[in-house]
């Protein structure tokens, strides 16, 4: 099938891996939690390592800036800031910034869905069958 506005490429795992392992602590290895054997680096891990390296070597890395405004900084976020030469400021977000879509099936077989922020909230939502407040067809009681 062809899609006019889309291109598909393979994630540069090998390239990222090649650039990534030169950590000051030495090579980085990954263990499969089930088999306990060495496994390949995932794209996310490759991306994380590459980002760490790039942030460390190519851009200035500073603690999150505190605004001069009256508003306090949200210290719960842990991303890294990047300062570009053109004055732009970037912020690499972490997993807790991702939007998770969680689904529940109730006793009637109806499936409700909800969005939650981050892996932590997603885990909580999985355990909760009470939240389908926004499922407009829910047969609750």
């Amino acid at each position, binding site marked *: *099938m062809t*899609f*006019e*506005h*889309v*291109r*598909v*490429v393979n*994630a540069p795992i090998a390239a990222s891996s090649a650039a990534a392992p030169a950590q000051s602590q030495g090579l980085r290895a990954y263990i499969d939690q089930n088999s306990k054997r060495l496994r390949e680096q*995932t*794209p*996310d891990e490759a*991306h994380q390592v*590459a980002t760490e390296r*790039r942030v460390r070597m190519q851009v200035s890395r500073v603690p999150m*800036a505190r*605004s001069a405004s009256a*508003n*306090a*900084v*949200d210290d*719960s976020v842990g*991303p890294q800031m990047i300062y*570009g030469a053109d004055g*732009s*400021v*970037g*912020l*690499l*977000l972490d997993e807790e*910034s*991702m*939007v*998770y*879509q*969680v*689904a*529940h*099936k*109730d006793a009637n077989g109806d*499936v409700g*869905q*909800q*969005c*939650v922020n981050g*892996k932590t*909230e*997603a885990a909580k939502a*999985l355990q909760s*069958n009470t939240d*389908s*407040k*926004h*499922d*407009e*067809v*829910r*047969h*609750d*009681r």
Partner: protein
Amino acid sequence: MIANHRSIASALSACGAALLLTVASAPTYAAATIIIQNGNAAGVGFNDPTPAAPVGGNTGVTLGQQRLNAFQAAANTWGATLTSTANVTILATFEPLTCTATSAVLGSAGAISVFRDFPGAPFPNTWYSSALANKLVGADLDTSTPEIRARFNSNLGLTGCLTGVPFYLGLDNAHGPAIDLVTVLLHEFGHGFGFQTFTNGTSGAYLAGFPSVYDNYLLDTTVNKLWVNMTNAERATSALNSRRLVWTGANVGAAVPNALALGTPFLSVTTPASVAGQYLVGTASFGPPLATPGVTGEIMPVVDSAGSIGLACTPLSALNAAAVNGKLAVVDRGTCTFNVKAKFAQDAGAIGVIVVDNVAGGPPAGLGGADPTVTIPSVRITLADGTTLKNALRTRSRLHSGVFATLAVDMTTRSGADGAGRPMVFTPNPFQSGSSVSHWDTSATPNLLMEPAINVDLTHTVVPPVDLTFSLLQDEGW
């Protein structure tokens, strides 16, 4: 507590989405290239070689190829709608995600990075998703990092992972009881393009001290302040101000009259003055929809349980039946389904049913259930509003309360918008992380793509007159 704001619900959900589809299209000049970066290793995820029969216009013959085709279809819709000279890269994988037999993480997505104070930024000191920042700059601000991360559950539907409810991989939206992957992707990509605030809704604190571009368009109609003009405490309060936080962007405002149906269901108490006002309601999926001029009558409670509770899960006693005959019956949520309560009240002669929630929070959700023999209207109100009404009912006689109300539809406002035609964003109380603020309110009718729950009647459309997602992104600078 009385809610003076007009209530909204989904009574008119059948309104003209199909007709509107015929004229829905993206701007002809729009174009952006979406690059899907396949992050799966050989043999899994997008590369899963398991044979699969073509389905719903998806001609892939392996599970992996069908997944990739669905991803491309969703990305292509966005690529045909957005305009950018900078490519948007989505790092995507299908992989095992957390699940149980009855629940599952379908997937996750979002911007990998945000930028502020780039050349040409419309608002200074303001965070933009990297895809939007790149579009506004006309170049990739960070060529080494994709703009969006998306991962979806490769085990969905298998035994032990929302068993029996897989992703539907067809492209024609004929998903039946399965979960339509293209719709989920359109929704999640929408967040990645900028349909979200990065501000903490619980504390009200900006991300790293700066607002999101999204915050510039959020107006709290109680205090008449934009989020960017509030203190942290004010924003935290505003995030809980149900159906009082609206989007003020011009593109969305222009699209609302065609996207949202006229008609806002409400409960209006007229006397006594101490409790008079309009209350938020959730409407029922059974019985007749609320109408104009609606049903007006005296309110009387059912009392059949300890603590002045009226469950109405069995035929009403003679005393209760006499009390609600010809009146609007107040019953409590719990023990049996809503349509059962409505039917017993109807059998006793009630002309309408007001179900009081049994847990705190708002806005009131709808009333699910089905019973074609129910012929009177029913609504749900919050526990807090129910307590207010019950207090007013304490001085009643056996047959009269002196409390009068109307269940009707206000045809001057649109379902999901305020009186000024501004769509409401989702602000339930208590706060729902990930859902609150960064979605449209659930009262929008017809349903919109960016409501917190993905409704089964959605189409694969992101533009007006069917949907408001692209309009909101346009307001932000797309």
